């Protein structure tokens, strides 16, 4: 039996988390200039704090996923300076413990997908360090948002690697947390010290579970669909920006670069996008994916086919961010609806 604890209100929960902010970096969803993102609560304005409850408990993920807190858009490997002919190399900053409040099931699953890549041998140290240091407080959605397709991807009630589950008891207004990992237990203990109380029951979400798409079927349908003229049509519409990839919670490609000025510099990694023409360009100038079609196709095949083959799961969690922000309205559905016939035939 996992312990369940309760705060009288969301406000109390926030207050309690605030108390822990010397120990943890506490991040939660809020809006900044109308755009929804996770932000450290210590850096929020009052106005922004007032948004946290709504967005934490909402049945739809914010625009920004939790990914940047585990896999930042830029991250330094080493810093180097040259002094008196000697090279001084430093690996900067150790990761700090962090709490992510109001993460969504789709976020959890997307991290689990990234885990498949980054935590398998060879392990990505930078990611692992942050992953180990992060406590996820996950809100279980009661229903789906307008662009959510989590049901298709079997994500909606996934709570696998969540450390704490969060739910609101509408009748009492209490916020209930259920720890389900060691990190979760520790945080629950700490929150009890900050005035939260034990609670006998946890409220399970109401959302009905629908049968998910079968990953192998999709993969097969995709593979059968490879030569379709559809891809050329889609590529003609795509404008080649990186919105879909940069807001995707499962995309995890990065580029390694050096920055050097005078006698100092850094080697860092930074998000890359398979939609950029230079993504696959090799040093000699050859590019195995020279056309937009190659790139568009690759993005969908990576998520819906290659990832299945390599990691045994679909590379999409159905969060709907890519489709919502695509300036020309291309979404996962755009592809899934087209291959749908073939999926059903099998």
């Amino acid at each position, binding site marked *: 039996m996992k312990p369940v604890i309760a705060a009288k209100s969301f406000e109390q929960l926030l207050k309690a988390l605030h108390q822990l902010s010397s120990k943890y970096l506490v991040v939660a969803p809020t809006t900044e200039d109308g755009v929804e993102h996770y932000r450290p609560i210590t850096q929020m304005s009052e106005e922004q704090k007032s948004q946290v409850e709504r967005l934490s408990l909402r049945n739809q993920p914010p625009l920004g996923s939790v990914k940047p807190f585990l896999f930042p858009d830029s991250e330094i490997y080493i*810093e180097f*300076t040259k002094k008196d002919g000697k090279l001084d190399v430093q690996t900067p900053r150790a990761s700090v413990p962090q709490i992510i409040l109001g993460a969504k099931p789709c976020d959890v699953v997307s991290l689990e997908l990234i885990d498949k890549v980054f935590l398998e041998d060879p392990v990505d140290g930078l990611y692992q360090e942050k992953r180990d240091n992060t406590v996820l407080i996950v809100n279980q959605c009661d229903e789906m948002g307008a662009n959510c397709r989590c049901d298709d991807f079997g994500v909606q009630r996934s709570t696998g690697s969540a450390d704490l589950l969060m739910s609101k008891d509408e009748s009492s207004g209490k916020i209930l947390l259920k720890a389900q990992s060691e990190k979760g237990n520790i945080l629950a203990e700490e929150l009890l010290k900050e005035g939260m109380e034990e609670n006998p029951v946890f409220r399970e979400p109401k959302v009905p579970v629908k049968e998910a798409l079968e990953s192998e079927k999709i993969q097969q349908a995709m593979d059968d669909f490879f030569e379709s003229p559809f891809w050329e049509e889609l590529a003609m519409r795509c404008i080649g920006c990186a919105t879909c990839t940069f807001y995707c919670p499962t995309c995890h490609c990065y580029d390694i670069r050096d*920055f050097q*000025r*005078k006698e*100092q*510099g*850094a080697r860092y990694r930074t998000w890359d996008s398979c939609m950029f023409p230079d993504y696959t360009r090799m040093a000699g100038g050859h590019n195995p994916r020279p056309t937009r079609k190659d790139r568009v196709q690759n993005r969908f095949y990576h998520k819906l086919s290659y990832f299945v083959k390599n990691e045994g799961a679909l590379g999409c969690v159905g969060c709907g961010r890519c489709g919502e922000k695509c300036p020309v309205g291309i979404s996962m559905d755009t592809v899934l609806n087209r291959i749908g016939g073939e999926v059903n035939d099998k």
Partner: protein
Amino acid sequence: MMQDTFEPKIIAFCCNWCSYAGADLAGTGRLKYPENIRIIRVPCSSRVDSALVLRAFQNGADGVMIAGCHPGDCHYDTGNYHTRKRMMLLKSLMEFMGLDEERLLVKWISGNEADRFKDTVESFTSKLKKMGASGKVRDLRCAK
């Protein structure tokens, strides 16, 4: 307290025909000015684009100076007309973004205005000393 010890770094782009020559003449005349300035020779002030200016700031320059011939005296006829148009826009955009546009100095200095060159360097240096180090456009990896 910073003002006493802070030595601003100034990168100057000087056109070959007027301002660079003006700086040469300051040398020939043994005029003295602060060591803070580093001059980069360009054929004409219009060769300098915004990218170069911003790059200098990124790298940690506290001031950037673009010096060309007086309007009407451009060795290439019209180069400095382009410079003043482009740099006015750059400065107004910098100002609009809250960046310290006064750290970008555009100055007309002719080949025989050694005094003017010296005065410009002196006053720009002391102005930057008062302003302190530039941080707004600096790439933090160039901080050391």
